[in-house]
């Protein structure tokens, strides 16, 4: 229900829901057949995507209520309003309040779908984005189709790209940016960095740190420069302590408020009584961060499990960590200099997020926005450097 002029009908409780969503699914299958015909995907991938395009039908209303991921309403309404040629929130644009909803709605509204009639429709739009991403990934040099299929089969990737969320618009551009940088291609970076600036400022910040480390300090080419960069980073942390801590404390409190009963409104009413643990200095922040990283790595922890989704997410986090270590060992990435700035920014992201963890559901999402792009980037770095050393060995022999 958008406003009094919108004929938005929530079909979630009727069988019309299936009529509309099955037509979206059928459209996606047509797309898969077409890409198979023009030889963009293999037969194995065809079957895989025929199955995977059905996932938006399984989550909302079946496995859980759409209110579990309440922000789905924001993006759906944004797209519905655009379809009527109106603004969901008058005056909203790329700057200020609602810029994320505005831009996510704008991008998702350009994904061709037959029907946007329910909260699940944009899940299909996200699946189409994931499918295009898969095609791009599988056609990268050194990247095997099998690896691309495995990465696209990670449960969280399937979940977040099957709902009407903006996660696909964060995870996929971040991955494209990192891989493009490793490949020395700069156009995708110029296109996607502004998108991330609006949709997820934190991911934009971590990528900016990575670019400062590599472009300015050349840490991907020299270990000495990497060490200098670390010293400079810590020096800046201490030099701008007051400002940095002010921002961290603000975000810490913001997540406390978000996690409060009735959210910000509840916090506005009763938040004064909350005993807020403020970070006093940089050393305190570093200690708290180091203590918090293991928790962030494995949340949701067994004693906080509620429902089936939690153990799956826990097992996935264990699996992703194992995959991370496997990639580093399998391709001897510690002997590749480019690994270090990647690992440093990954660690910095985890360090910062570990200071903010309040709501498990939110941070499982935040964690995945970092783990997925960085893991694929490390994998790509591994396969490409392995290939290059093979070529070098061939040449020398």
């Amino acid at each position, binding site marked *: *229900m*958008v*406003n*009094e002029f919108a*004929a938005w*009908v*929530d*079909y979630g*409780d009727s069988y*019309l829901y299936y*009529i*509309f969503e*099955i*037509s979206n699914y*059928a*459209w996606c*299958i*047509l797309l898969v*057949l*077409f890409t198979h*015909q*023009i*030889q963009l995907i293999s*037969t194995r991938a*065809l079957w895989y995507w025929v199955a995977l395009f059905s996932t938006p039908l399984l989550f909302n209303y079946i496995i859980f209520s759409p209110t579990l991921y309440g922000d789905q309403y924001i993006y759906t309404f944004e797209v519905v309003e655009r379809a009527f040629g109106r603004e*969901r*929130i*008058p005056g*909203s644009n790329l700057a200020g*309040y*609602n810029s994320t909803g505005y831009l996510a709605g704008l991008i998702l509204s350009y994904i061709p779908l*037959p*029907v946007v*009639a329910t909260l699940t429709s944009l899940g299909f739009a996200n699946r189409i984005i994931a499918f295009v991403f898969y095609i791009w990934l599988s056609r990268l040099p050194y990247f095997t189709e099998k690896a691309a299929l495995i990465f696209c089969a990670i449960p969280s990737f399937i979940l977040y790209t099957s709902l009407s969320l903006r996660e696909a618009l964060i995870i996929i551009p971040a991955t494209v940016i990192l891989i493009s940088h490793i490949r020395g291609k700069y156009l995708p970076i110029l296109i996607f960095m502004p998108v991330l600036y609006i949709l997820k400022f934190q991911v934009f910040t971590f990528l900016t740190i990575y670019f400062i480390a590599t472009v300015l300090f050349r840490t991907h080419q020299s270990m000495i420069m990497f060490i200098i960069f670390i010293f400079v980073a810590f020096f800046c942390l201490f030099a701008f302590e007051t400002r940095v801590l002010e921002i961290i*404390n*603000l975000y810490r*409190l*913001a997540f406390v*408020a978000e996690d409060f009963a*009735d*959210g*910000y*409104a509840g*916090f*506005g*009413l009763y*938040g*004064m009584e909350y005993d*807020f643990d403020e970070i006093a200095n940089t050393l305190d922040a570093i200690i708290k961060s180091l203590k918090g990283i293991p928790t962030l790595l494995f949340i949701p922890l067994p004693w906080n499990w509620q429902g089936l989704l939690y153990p799956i997410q826990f097992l996935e986090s264990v699996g992703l960590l194992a995959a991370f270590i496997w990639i580093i060992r399998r391709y001897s990435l510690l002997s590749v200099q480019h690994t270090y700035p990647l690992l440093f920014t990954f660690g910095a992201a985890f360090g910062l997020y570990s200071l903010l963890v309040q709501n498990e559901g939110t941070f499982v999402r935040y964690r995945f926005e970092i783990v997925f792009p960085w893991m694929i980037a490390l994998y790509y770095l591994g396969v490409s450097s392995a290939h290059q050393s093979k070529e070098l060995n061939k040449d020398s022999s």
Partner: protein
Amino acid sequence: MNKFQQSLKLSLDFFNSHVLKKSSLKYLGASLIFSLLIIFILSPKFLISTTLLENTSNSDTQKIDGVGGLLQSLSGGVGNTNFEKFKSRLESTAVAKRLWDEGWGKRVFAPGSDYPLDGIPKSHSMGSRLSALLLGYELNDTLTHHDMKQFAKNSVGLNKVGRSSKIVAQMKSGDPEFAKEFLDALIYIADSEAKIGEIVLTKSRIASLKEGLADSKNAIVTSGLSNLLNSAYFSLVTLESDQPYFVIIVDKANSSETPISPNIFLIIFANLVTFLSLSAFISYFRANKEQIW
């Protein structure tokens, strides 16, 4: 032939051989029949909506200093108070009970029947019957105000538009006249129920302020308490009037001119896409079965 030309040729082949073919017409015909069948069994539903304004002038949220205050202003915490109070009341048992007592139960669940208000039979699904049998509890034979609460919660949507104080309440119904009356009654009762709680709170505040005033020996404190007492009395007078307190009704419930559901064209179009894709799917698999299987 270069790569682009080859892809173009394959694309055209795909559309000519699997989409734009004679047998697709059969599927399109079948989709039309299927759509008509669905449309015939659906009943039209109208959109009933009412526009309200949140009354922010009487909000009693406390201001927080420092970072918390910044957050409060960022989140619009002050303005949310009355909306939250009103919304909670709208979905409360107390409001459902009042609606039930005023006879809405019969109008909602058994219009035109001879059943007494507390004798409207309640049907149960097989699942709930089985649960009751297995767990050993009794199911209600008649409808109660709890069913009214569920009806109000499921059928009425209350939303704030952005950060403005504008609130829109909406519901879908096949009987627009009934829905308009119901929506107006629900909003009025929800507001008056919220007022009852607020009156009790304000009276208790007045009593405490009077005690404080009697004990005060400091001129500044006495003056401050007097101001608070004045404002509490003003609130009480406003609360005790007949007018809505938490919301201001800008536009009473009105119905859309035409039904908003079912959307006939959307149903026909969705089925066309489904059947056309099905036709292409079957054709493609027949043509490439050896390669695909």
